[in-house]
């Protein structure tokens, strides 16, 4: 009995790892074999990044039950931290994957630290108020990150919050240029590293969910008062989930930042947070495999619709609304089942007729 239960969890986890690995191997194989189009080659890393973001946000929204609208803020911290670290280590660490990995870890740690600092005040609130405060923090983070000036020259690293007195020595390199962001980034991100990121994310989130911490987090979601009454420190566990989620978002952000040659803080705005949230909700709350798949599909979908030109985004909007109605609305679901019954009824009738 107990074994069976364990098996069930392990089995569903294995399915997730399997799907991800197969996807990676197929894509990597096609890539090496030159069978991928330029577009798809370009999608590979962002897909990994968005999977990781969606899964980490799912930990917060689906499993912990806290609506966060500021996930992109952590992504942004990770991205810029990663860009700065990678630039500083340009000469110190020659091996590119290692430099990238260090950048991702630093990005994750900084985002996690920001998550902790923000968590102290924020996690006193609940529900929609928590949502608005995370939104506010996301905007604050973007605003602050977007006004940082970081430069490297012979003297060392210079950091400032205004451009007014920011000057570098001759031959110095501007790493972050305020709202304009980072330009001339050395692209380090690779698809295999994206795959590693997804594996790390899945490993952390799945292991967390199926442990005593995960049970406590789910208990807090299901019934906060009861969880307290059995000795669970609710704030501590919301905090753990928040920090882990921010850490993973930071790692993903670092990979994202190092996948492009220029990156502006405005990328990490409310809209990006919302997009990640859409991945989570459409994939199913608390459903990790759902997040993985919906992040992939919904990232590619608007790109696949490019031939529609002006009607592309409006169609995306319509698809979004319809999917929400079809997956959530009890009435629409009922209607669909009636229609499908009727259709299958017609087919059955025909079958009977042809048989008879």
């Amino acid at each position, binding site marked *: 009995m107990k074994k069976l239960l364990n098996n069930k969890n392990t089995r569903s986890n294995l399915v997730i790892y399997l799907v991800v690995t197969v996807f990676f191997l197929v894509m990597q194989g096609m890539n090496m074999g030159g069978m991928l189009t330029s577009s798809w080659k370009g999608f590979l890393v962002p897909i990994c990044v968005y999977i990781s973001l969606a899964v980490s946000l799912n930990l917060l*929204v689906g499993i912990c039950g806290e*609506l966060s609208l500021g996930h992109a803020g952590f992504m942004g911290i990770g991205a810029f931290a990663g860009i700065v670290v990678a630039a500083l280590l340009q000469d110190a660490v020659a091996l590119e994957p290692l430099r990238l990995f260090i950048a991702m870890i630093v990005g994750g740690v900084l985002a996690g630290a920001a998550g902790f600092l923000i968590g102290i*005040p*924020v996690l*006193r*609130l609940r529900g*929609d*108020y928590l*949502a*608005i*405060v995370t*939104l*506010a*923090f996301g*905007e*604050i983070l973007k*605003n*602050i990150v977007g*006004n940082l000036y970081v430069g490297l020259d012979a003297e060392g690293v210079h950091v400032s919050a*205004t451009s007014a007195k920011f000057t570098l020595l001759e031959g110095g390199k501007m790493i972050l240029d*305020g*709202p304009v962001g980072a330009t001339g980034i050395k692209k380090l991100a690779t698809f295999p590293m994206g795959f590693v990121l997804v594996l790390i994310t899945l490993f952390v989130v799945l292991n967390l969910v199926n442990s005593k911490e995960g049970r406590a987090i789910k208990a807090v979601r299901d019934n906060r*008062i009861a969880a307290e009454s059995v000795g669970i420190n609710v704030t501590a566990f919301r905090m753990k989930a928040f920090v882990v989620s921010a850490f993973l978002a930071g790692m993903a952000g670092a990979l994202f930042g190092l996948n492009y040659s220029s990156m502006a803080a405005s990328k990490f705005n*409310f809209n990006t947070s*919302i997009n990640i*949230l*859409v991945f989570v*909700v*459409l994939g199913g*709350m608390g459903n990790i495999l759902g997040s993985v798949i919906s992040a992939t599909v919904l990232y590619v979908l608007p790109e696949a619709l490019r031939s529609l030109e*002006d*009607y592309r*985004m*409006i169609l*995306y*909007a*319509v698809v*979004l*609304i319809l999917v*929400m*109605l079809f997956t*959530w*609305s*009890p*009435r*629409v679901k009922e209607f669909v089942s009636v229609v499908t019954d009727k259709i299958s009824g017609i087919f059955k009738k025909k079958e009977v007729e042809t048989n008879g």
Partner: protein
Amino acid sequence: MQILQYLINGISIGAVYAIIALGYTMVYGIAKMLNFAHGDIIMVGAYISFCVTNYLGLPAFVSVIAAMAVCTLLGILIEKLAYMPLRGTPSLAVLITAIGVSYFLQNGAQLIWGSAPKNFASIVPLKPVFLAGGELVITGEVIVTILASVLIMVGLTLFTTKTKIGKAMRAVSEDRAAAQLMGISVNNTISMTFAIGSALAAIAGVLLCSTVPTLQPTTGAMPGIRAFTAAVFGGIGSIPGAMLGGILLGIIETFSKAFISTQFSDAIVFSVLIIILLVKPAGLLGKQIQEKV
């Protein structure tokens, strides 16, 4: 004198936020959903008003009425088609749908009216008032916006406390199931709320664009988020709270731009919001509800 001028500017933009926030608060209070498409209804309202005055050549007040009519219909339509089927589902599902609606309205507006920004000619015929030898200017828009926001606030308060429909709205907002048992049609009441909220959005759109003249499909997005912040600031669900929140937000935003930093004004505005929520978790005038054990 300088500080007074900034105060006036702040109150002026704050009053616009207040009108938008009133719509947000109404919808949130009664339908219990964050309607992120509210900002885009504002944009539609402004476009309608723009078209009526510029293409049909009709007077300003007609354009406002037309905008209100169209937005009311639009609000009801959106509610019936997109939100009503999702009643009773988790609020997150409705939130995502609202975002879909927001994308739809923005991109639809671009298809209809094009992406080129339009310059919205102010509908306010009043001349500016110059005080203190021209150092202090109060524009007609400021006067009209502030008057309108106060009138709307008073009107809404009277409406929700004195009329039958208004009382029904409050009943639905307090306890939907109980209201239904009392014979109140929850669906009709919520539709009515959307109608009123959207009509307010139309007014807000016209006044917003009279104050800040650029009109394009994304015009409503940022003020929408600001106004939402204002509504939470004042205590979401509270009518005077939305008014207070809007005005305060406008003043804080203007002052931080003028005296602290234009770059960090966003960070400052949102930090104040967070501090307020930590001190008063339900906003300035919101009701704190204790969970029953």
